[in-house]
C-alpha cells in the first residue's frame, strides 16, 4: 500500500513503516510505504497516521520506534531509519 503526502516544497523521501499488533490490523498490512516531505518529525508522522487511519486515535497510546528505540516527538526521521508503529504494549 502506498500513500503520498507532501506538506512543504522540500525534498521527498521514501519511507517504509512497520506495524505490529493492532496497528497491523488497522493498516491491514504489516508494512506501509510512504513518500514523505522532509524533514519528517515523529510527531508529524503520528499526526499523518492518525489522520489517514482514525482508528489510531482510539488506541490507549501510540508511539513510534526509530531504529529499535522509542523516539521523541521532535526526533527527525531520516532515510534508512527503521520506523515501527508501537501500539499499546501488553507483555508479561
Amino acid at each position: 500500500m502506498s500513500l503520498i503526502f507532501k506538506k512543504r516544497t522540500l525534498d521527498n523521501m521514501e519511507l517504509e513503516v512497520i506495524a505490529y499488533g493492532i496497528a497491523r490490523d488497522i493498516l491491514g498490512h504489516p508494512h506501509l510505504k510512504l513518500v514523505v516531505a522532509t524533514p519528517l518529525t515523529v510527531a508529524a508522522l503520528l499526526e499523518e497516521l492518525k489522520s489517514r487511519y482514525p482508528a489510531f486515535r482510539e488506541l490507549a497510546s501510540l508511539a513510534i520506534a526509530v531504529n529499535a528505540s522509542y523516539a521523541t516527538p521532535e526526533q527527525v526521521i531520516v532515510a534508512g531509519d527503521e520506523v515501527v508503529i508501537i501500539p499499546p504494549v501488553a507483555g508479561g
Partner: protein
Amino acid sequence: MKITVELLDTPLSTAVCQPALANEGAGGIVWFVGTVRNQTEGRTVRRLEFEAYTPMALAELRKIGEQACARWPVQKMVIHHRIGTLAIGDIAVIIGVACPHRAEAFAACQFAIDTLKQTVPIWKKEFFDDGAVWVAAHP
C-alpha cells in the same frame, strides 16, 4: 553475564533460568512468574498469542535490567519472555533477581515486571470462543 534476557517460543521454566542467577553471594532471590489466566473480565480465554518486535523487545528488556542494577544492588537478573501461541496455565514471563538482601530483590523484581508491561514491545491477543482482542489496546 549479569543480565540475561531472552524471547523464547518454547515453554518457560525457572529451572532453565536458574543458572543465570548462580551466585554464591546472593542471599535473596525473588522470582515473578506470570501465567496465562483462564478469564479476562469474566470471559473464558481459550489461548493467547504474543508477538514481539524482537530486536527492540530484547533491547528494552536489557534496559530494564540495567535500570534495576542502577537502583538496587542487583547481583544477577534474568528475564525470559514467551512468544507465539500459549495455552491456559502456560508461563508468559519469568523474571528472577538475585540481591544480597531480600527487600532489594523484591523491589527490583517488581520494578522489572511493572516496567516490562509498560515499555517492552510485546503484544498479546486473547482468543475467546466468540472472537479475539488485542489486550490493553483501547482505554
